[in-house]
């Protein structure tokens, strides 16, 4: 009898393990934001006209950044509606996993929110027998600074103040630095609770790049995927940060714009030095991305963003995500589909869909180069 009971216990434990294991795996997979998805999904049904299915066939696997998940979902949906018989499967795990999968040759292309590192390019030469991995900028987007402060419904901050808030050097909402930027706003005497991402993230890295470019005196940390400052609280994923900001009075955090929209969180307007504070919108983010320079050599189109931009109406905290492919030497059985799919994604219609989902299209000049490169893939 004792034995039986022990076995039963063990079986229960095993069952619990299996269920939680499955849950863990699925939970990691999707940094989901269903609302933005639903918003975008409805409006984009007109985009199918621009799709050419020449040479596309079979199944195309792709993997990578969850930051572009919602955009990818829309593209895949429209593309598969137009090209019957083709199946595109984008696994939105993370940039790191995408690049690893790409360099192992298991996916047709990878999505990444930062350009390939030199050693990753080196590694990609094994898979792209005649060429190497290149970055194609496809999706841009603003990183919104969301806040929750009872009684305050609009807030202006500049880079040095933002840096000091996230570095916990400014700890009260009625601090003079914040009050000076928000004349006429009644700021309460509450502690500031800054939230950041607990896992490594391209969003963190982009915010770090912005802060060290626009406020080098206040933000002394290296821009890395890991959150560098010692203070503040952490939450997991953009959705985690957004729901903490939503729940906690006196909090401030950063996430992609679509999360602010879906959780109904007020975002901070950024004073860039142009005179008028800039709102976090797709349109304003596009203006900032327009100032980006292509720094990749050859066919590589890795971008360098100008985070310290003072251009009128340009929202400076932006994120650009890439699709990573081989310039030459792509696998023969997926090349047709990759070319056809990326041609659609970089087409006018493909880029227009992005605005609906809270992303920003890639500026026309750079996008023209992307199309040219996609056409020349082999």
């Amino acid at each position, binding site marked *: 009898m004792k034995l039986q009971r022990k076995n039963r216990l063990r079986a229960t434990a095993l069952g619990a393990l299996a269920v939680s294991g499955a849950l863990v795996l699925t939970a990691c997979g999707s940094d989901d934001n269903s609302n933005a998805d639903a918003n975008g999904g409805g409006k984009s049904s007109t985009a199918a006209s621009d799709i050419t299915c020449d040479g596309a066939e079979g199944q195309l696997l792709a993997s990578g950044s969850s930051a572009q998940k919602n955009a990818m979902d829309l593209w895949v949906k429209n593309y598969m509606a137009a090209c019957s018989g083709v199946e595109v499967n984008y696994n939105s795990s993370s940039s790191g996993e995408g690049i*690893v999968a790409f360099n192992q040759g298991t996916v047709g292309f990878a999505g990444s929110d930062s350009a390939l590192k030199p050693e990753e390019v080196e590694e990609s030469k094994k898979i792209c027998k005649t060429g190497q991995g290149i970055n194609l900028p496809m999706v841009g987007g603003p990183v919104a600074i969301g806040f929750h402060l009872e009684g305050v419904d609009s807030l202006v901050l500049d880079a040095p103040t933002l840096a000091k808030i996230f570095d916990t050097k400014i700890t009260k909402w009625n601090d003079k630095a914040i009050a000076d930027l928000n004349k006429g706003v009644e700021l309460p005497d509450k502690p500031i609770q800054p939230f950041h991402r607990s896992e490594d993230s391209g969003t963190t890295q982009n915010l770090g790049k912005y802060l060290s470019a626009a406020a080098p005196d206040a933000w002394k940390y290296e821009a890395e995927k890991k959150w560098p400052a010692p203070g503040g609280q952490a939450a997991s994923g953009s959705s985690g940060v957004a729901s903490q900001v939503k729940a906690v009075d006196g909090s401030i955090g950063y996430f992609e714009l679509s999360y602010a929209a879906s959780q109904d969180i007020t975002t901070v307007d950024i004073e860039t030095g142009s005179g008028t504070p800039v709102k976090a919108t797709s349109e304003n983010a596009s203006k900032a991305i327009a100032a980006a320079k292509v720094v990749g050599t050859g066919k590589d189109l890795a971008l360098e963003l100008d985070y310290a931009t003072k251009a009128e109406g340009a929202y400076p905290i932006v994120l650009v995500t890439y699709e990573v492919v081989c310039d030459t030497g792509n696998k023969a059985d997926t090349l047709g589909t990759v070319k056809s799919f990326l041609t659609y994604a970089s087409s006018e219609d493909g880029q227009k869909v992005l605005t609906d989902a809270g992303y920003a299209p890639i500026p026309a000049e750079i996008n023209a180069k992307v199309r040219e490169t996609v056409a020349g893939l082999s």
Partner: protein
Amino acid sequence: MASTTSLDTPPAPPAPRDRPRSTGRVGDKIFIGLSRGSGILLLVVMASIAVFLGYRAATAISENEGNFLTTFDWNPAGDPPVFGIAVLLFGTVVSSVIAMVIAVPIAVGIALFISHYAPRKLAAPLGYVIDLLAAVPSIVYGIWGALVLVPYLEGLNLWLDQFFGWTYVFDKTAIGVPRSLFTVGILLAIMILPIVTSVTREVFLQVPKMNEEAALALGATRWEVVRLSVLPFGRSGIISASMLGLGRALGETMAVATVLSPSFLISLHVLNHGGGTFAQNIAAKFGEADEFGRDALIASGLVLFVLTLLVNGAARLIIARRKEYSGANA
């Protein structure tokens, strides 16, 4: 079930004796081959896993610029890579200790109630309900913890800070919601409650009826029976049950990752957010980690493995030392 154990002595540990001889018939030979083969296969699989993990951990540690044991940082993607397990070790131990301090007395109480106080009709369903808690997936505990427990604990934290702030441990110095090691400890306590309770209850049911009846015959109250015969008999069982629970608390992943606000700082102020545990850190960092980062995480996982091994070893030592007093070999 086991409560029917009547006057006979409790099961003694099997005495060393000669193996039964093989009869030399075919069935025996096949069976010997099968069982020996499975035994060897298991060892080979375990050994190859250990070699694989050890090799990858060694690659990571050899390139680590920080001190693997004392560095307060986790940045294997940096240039140079710097990572250390000090914070994780501290957080894992502290959260598990908090969980044990809360869970073990409650579990022993529930087990005593079920085995010695509750009417038979109530005892069985109560036991099933407690066991059922073990079947709830940890992510559910995590979500419950983040949405219900964390806001609810805000009051308790303020109360502890106000009246027990002088203890240093309960001095709350950082502002913010209680996504702290203390909250994690409470959540872990709830999660390990069923395993500790059910094992302890089984042990209490094994107490020889003769001992209890003898105590009763001498005029002992029910509490005295528990104190004089049940608890001494069950002590080693309580310890092994606690160690089983501790093992679970040390390795808990998703619930901790959901509730804790991690940071790479060591602080004895358990009400402040911050800290981290091995499993939580692996769950949080694995997705975005590159090849080298994963090696580093594997290295940290090996430390957790060693920690669990030490805990289990210590438990066996304690049990072995106490065996003669417990009546387990009477």
